């Protein structure tokens, strides 16, 4: 795991997201940055996003309301981190 977390202010959340992504995708992820795109770069699909959200709920001890999650929030690791930071 080697997440670049510059300038997000959400370093801890980014780190948790990368670990959750590794769990959901069942592979080690290298060179993940806040700009890494969830669908376009990591090939997540709808089902894996749902699994990711549940894994993140556990890891961050928070609740995510799926209906408040818009496509833009799932654009990249950074945008998801910002959404999670705001909803905590």
């Amino acid at each position, binding site marked *: 795991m080697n997440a670049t977390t510059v300038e997000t202010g959400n370093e801890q959340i980014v780190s948790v997201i990368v670990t959750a992504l590794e769990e959901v995708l069942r592979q080690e992820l290298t060179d993940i940055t806040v700009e890494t795109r969830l669908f376009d770069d990591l090939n997540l*699909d*709808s089902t894996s996003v749902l699994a990711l959200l549940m894994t993140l709920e556990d890891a961050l001890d928070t609740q995510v309301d799926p*209906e408040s*999650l818009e496509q833009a929030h799932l654009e990249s690791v950074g945008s998801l981190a910002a959404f999670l930071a705001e909803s905590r």
Partner: protein
Amino acid sequence: MSPPDPTFLQGVKSACTGATGTPFVLLGNFEVEDEWARDEVGLPVFGGRASTAIVNRMDEFTVLLAGPGDHVVLKSAPDSDYLNYLRQLGIELPGILLTDEHDPAATVSEDALRSPRLLAALRSLAGQGAYLLPHGMSVLEQQLCELTGLAPALPAVSVVKAVNSKIYSRRVATDLGLPQAVGWECETVDEFVAAAGEAARAVAAGRRVGVKDAYGVSGKGIMVVDDLRRMDQLVRMVTRRAERTGDQRVALVIEEWADKALDLNYHFTVARDGSVRFDFVKEALTENGVHKGHRFPARLSTEHAAQLVVASERLGARLAADGFHGVVGVDAITTTDGGLLPVLEINARNNMSTYQTGLQERFMGPDSVALARQYDLRLTGPVTFAGLADRLGDLLFDRERGTGLVVNNFATVNAATPEPGDTRPYVGRLYGLLLARTQQELTDLDNAVVAAVQKETVHV
């Protein structure tokens, strides 16, 4: 090879309109489930820009299902070299109508409804007796019929939607005594909570269960649960939503996961008079529950094949009694203990396998084996069909040889091309039907195509 008489499509025309020669307007509104699910409460669905754009360009599959007397509605014009390639294969193409505008985020039906020029052309075809055959019938296609006067080839939306619910599939299988996985149909939050409690016992005993949206499409609205914590989370998510909205309805199914040997897709056509035509059975290729293609003929015992024919007759009769006519695909599996579960879900709409029928009839001989599949591409810029054909060379299907790859959708390759100025790599999808004489030849051909298309693109 000459296509059979009547062809698959002529049979559909006869079943849906009473005459084999009825002109059709075909509309490839893939993932019509999203429309059916609009008023339902299932599992949340998430989609990226690129996958939505690609699914919306699956509309081009209709070109190879329609006949020369038919029309198809597409979101944008096919690559002219692609059309020439199809003509060179001896395929008689349908008339191609385009929506006035093309929004990559919109389905072909949404684009069609805001296309005055297209609607005028469709009105003219309606005057000549054409019927609309959509991929599946939802309120959007019904509106299109109302706006243009095209007669719908399929029944009313309420009927089509009802028979496409996974809850309906399970209840019909129960009524008909067809074997199915242990499971529960849930229409209220209370029913879901109770079913989740039962399913948790299976999970605790080491089995896996699937929680499915009643209107989920391949790869969406499904969660495989193999630990209790995940089941608890799902229950909390469903109950939280109900508390927030005050809506106690859900449309969900929970099923124990059977030990699968083979995924199958079988297909039949129900006529307005209630008669049922069995069409075919194919192996379905799936990856983590997501549809990836078909292999046929299916490597299936005669006994299981016969059971599917009987299941088709019984399911078809039931669908007809419930007011449905049209094509139906059913997902089934054989199990590792030698059993057959003939009804995983009923899809009373066109299936991916439906769109292969024209090529099958034209190019598959008695000794052919076929693989229909998708190649996921990673692109740095638009690809032309001519460029791709150069790259594939002799791997493309040759009529004399009777083997090779037939591209059956090219629009999905460039569907997700980003806005100018965005230089980041993006995804594309190439669909093809591979024909060979032996399984080994088929595997070799597939591997060679993978190598060729990866050279064309940036390797993931």
